[in-house]
């Protein structure tokens, strides 16, 4: 089993990262703030004005460590990509599967089924934990509409039907999502899911966590030698990491949504962690981003028993495990792609 390697996040503006023998050195204003042996790291994320020496970039690409540049808001800007490696036969199998409507639809269907099931679990958990009977009823109703969609999904054949069911279910889910908020309810009210730019704190928080998760999913796809741009559920579009998005679908609710609720309900994130920009866009500020990243990294270390492997896996490794299962299916070693189900 792959080891869950740590990610170094550098958010201090003006920091400079260099390679010092086998370590990464982070300097701020000429002073060494941290020195980490490279063997502990799987990825380096930088946000905003952070510099990195070419030698460090060289070493990271040689050793397959992801280097990702995000802007101050945590939006993805660039990834340092090394040589095209991995198994070309696997990628070819991926392309063939993507252009085979039946095969693509079956993978997409399994992904959406897991997404619905996992979202349902989050709603039911929310319903169990809430005391207000009106809200509880709303959550249970939304959960029921997701299970109805699951039944319809079984009957659906084409990928468009699958996408349609996913869209309807996502609406039902986000309509009741903010009723699971117990603290600072007036701040975290959410009319609907919106992005680019997010228009309220809840959307800003979700978008930020999704960015972190998406980068992990893209790295996972690349790690097993899959092309992160060629997806099944998400249509292929230039510049879009469709497979990364596919891998993320089943994990959104359990890794990102639940984390957002926990952060709010434990008051680790409050209204002072956000700032509004001109034009109505809302983003996390520096303190908010740090709090979220810490919580996300901690969450990745929590373990859960993978239903298929029947062994304990840290949450942070699930994207890798799932990418490997997908690769197995694409190579023909496994009848179906089996997504991860959370219970």
């Amino acid at each position, binding site marked *: 089993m792959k080891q869950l390697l740590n990610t170094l996040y550098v958010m201090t503006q003006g920091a400079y990262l260099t390679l010092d023998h086998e370590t990464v050195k982070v300097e701020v204003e000429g002073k060494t703030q941290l020195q980490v042996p490279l063997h502990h790291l799987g990825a380096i994320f930088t946000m905003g004005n952070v510099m990195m020496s070419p030698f460090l970039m060289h070493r990271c690409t040689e050793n397959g460590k992801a280097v990702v540049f995000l802007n101050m808001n945590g939006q993805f800007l660039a990834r340092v990509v090394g040589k095209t490696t991995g198994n070309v036969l696997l990628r070819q199998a991926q392309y063939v599967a993507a252009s085979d409507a039946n095969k693509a639809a079956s993978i997409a269907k399994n992904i959406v089924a897991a997404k619905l099931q996992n979202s349902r679990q989050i709603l039911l958990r929310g319903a169990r934990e809430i005391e207000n009977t009106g809200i509880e009823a709303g959550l249970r109703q939304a959960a029921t509409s997701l299970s109805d969609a699951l039944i319809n999904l079984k009957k659906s054949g084409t990928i468009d039907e699958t996408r349609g069911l996913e869209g309807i279910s996502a609406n039902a889910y986000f309509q009741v999502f903010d009723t699971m908020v117990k603290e600072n309810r007036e701040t975290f009210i959410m009319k609907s899911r919106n992005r680019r730019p997010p228009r309220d704190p809840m959307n800003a928080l979700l978008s930020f966590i999704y960015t972190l998760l998406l980068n992990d999913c893209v790295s996972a796809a690349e790690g097993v030698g899959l092309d992160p741009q060629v997806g099944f559920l998400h249509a292929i579009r230039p510049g879009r990491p469709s497979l990364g998005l596919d891998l993320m679908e089943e994990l959104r609710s359990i890794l990102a949504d639940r984390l957002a609720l926990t952060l709010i309900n434990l008051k680790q994130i409050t209204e002072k962690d956000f700032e509004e920009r001109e034009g109505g866009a809302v983003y996390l500020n520096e303190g908010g981003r740090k709090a979220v*990243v*810490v919580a996300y990294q901690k969450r990745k270390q929590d373990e859960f028993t993978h239903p298929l492997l029947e062994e304990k896996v840290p949450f942070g490794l699930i994207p890798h495990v799932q990418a490997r299962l997908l690769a197995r299916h694409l190579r023909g070693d496994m009848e179906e792609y089996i997504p991860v189900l959370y219970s």
Partner: protein
Amino acid sequence: MWVIVTYDVTTETKEGRRRLRRVAQACKNFGQRVQKSVFECSVDQAQFETLRRNLLKEIDVKEDSLRFYRLQEPRDAHVEEHGVNRTVFFDEPLII
């Protein structure tokens, strides 16, 4: 696993000072300095072998002393820290 590396390198000669620098660097590649010539390293078996080989290459067995201690896990139950120089945990969130 957690390994404590400690060393004494004679610094009377220029050669010795060179060895000291190189030993310290070899340790830095695998862990962190917790005292002047004490390093804590969290490594797997293969990394430990590499670390040991690198260090043995650097020291002069007639002049210097090198010691490895394996920490009993869990580390936190067996390590007490006082004073300055707190340990950074490289497997906890690393955010700067």
